[in-house]
């Protein structure tokens, strides 16, 4: 009982700490809330529709590489980045792609729109949170439960 019964000094220190903590949390929350567009690492093709003046603006666009769209022609990689709402962006990239860039897999492209075509300067592969061995996938495919590519 002696511990549970808070004396005045302990109560004072508790309130002091609480005020510090609440003030700092509130300021961090406000910073995070007002900068939320800057903190976001990339935008999806759907978000681009509601943005103004995207021409010639340095952007990062993320999504999946559309199935059957990845081609190599005239020294350039050409592909489409698509999101869940089926909006897509045509991308041209002239350097080496990261190893993990595949169709139906995540990608982030960094660059500019020129005449509605996205000229990428940096391409990053974005892998998702699913991990499984090939044998598990084969098993799922046998059972007809595989929902991937």
């Amino acid at each position: 009982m002696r511990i549970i019964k808070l004396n005045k000094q302990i109560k004072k220190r508790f309130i002091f700490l609480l005020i510090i903590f609440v003030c700092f949390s509130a300021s961090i929350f406000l910073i995070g809330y007002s900068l939320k567009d800057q903190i976001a690492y990339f935008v999806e093709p759907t978000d681009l529709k509601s943005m103004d003046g995207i021409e010639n603006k340095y952007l990062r666009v993320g999504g999946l590489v559309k199935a059957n769209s990845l081609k190599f022609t005239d020294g350039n990689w050409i592909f489409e980045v698509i999101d869940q709402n089926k909006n897509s962006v045509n991308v041209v990239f002239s350097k080496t792609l990261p190893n993990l860039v595949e169709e139906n897999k995540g990608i982030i492209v960094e660059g500019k729109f020129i005449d509605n075509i996205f000229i990428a300067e940096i391409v990053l592969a974005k892998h998702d949170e699913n991990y499984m061995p090939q044998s598990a996938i084969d098993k799922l495919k046998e059972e007809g439960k595989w929902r991937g590519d």
Partner: protein
Amino acid sequence: MFAITPNTLANFMISLSRYFILLSLVLISVSIFLIIFLENDYYQGISFKIMFIHVPTAWLSLAIFLVMGISSIIGLIFKSPTAFTVARSLSPIGLIMSIIVLVTGSIWGNLTWGAYWVWDARLTSMLILAFIYLGHILLLYSFEHFQKADFAASILAIIGLINLPIVKFSVDWWTTLHQESSVLRMGGPSMTNDYLITLLVSFFGIFMLTIFWFSNIFYIIVEKRKMERSKLLND
């Protein structure tokens, strides 16, 4: 925490420390064995195996900070020297853990994403966590009297607690290059059981190593203070 003196806790922890290191060595050996014979990921290939260092150390660097913050609160409110000493001995371990997370994550990022470092929300908030650990250590050693140092450093630890949910939920709140959580997430883990078991074995191995390390640092701090006190008395 209220009645336990630093001395009691130090003696208790150091008496168990041989079991901690034994258990840790067994678990880490088992996990290395498991990692070697584990089948590669279908998409990332062998490079996903760095996860078994990256993820346990990431969890621990967050958990250590949580313990540090809570013991700083207890220390400040109840003036408990034991709680302050717990926080003091945890911060070097946390710093090393967060450096391991950043380095392994960087190697893994280069192998999979194609970049060592990007300024997305998860990576940046983790770097801030490492800097808070560093600041905590620097504060502890920038005062002549350890009571003053404990007071200043514990305020930093309590303010730093705000960063923990930001690190954990950054991947859900903002779009990031970093993947979302695979284990501690809504709807259960998104990896097969063999990967999950290996991850847990390796986590508990590194966890026991952390406890062993903590008991030794704690014991050394307490013994050093005892020696200084007896030196003062003799003079």
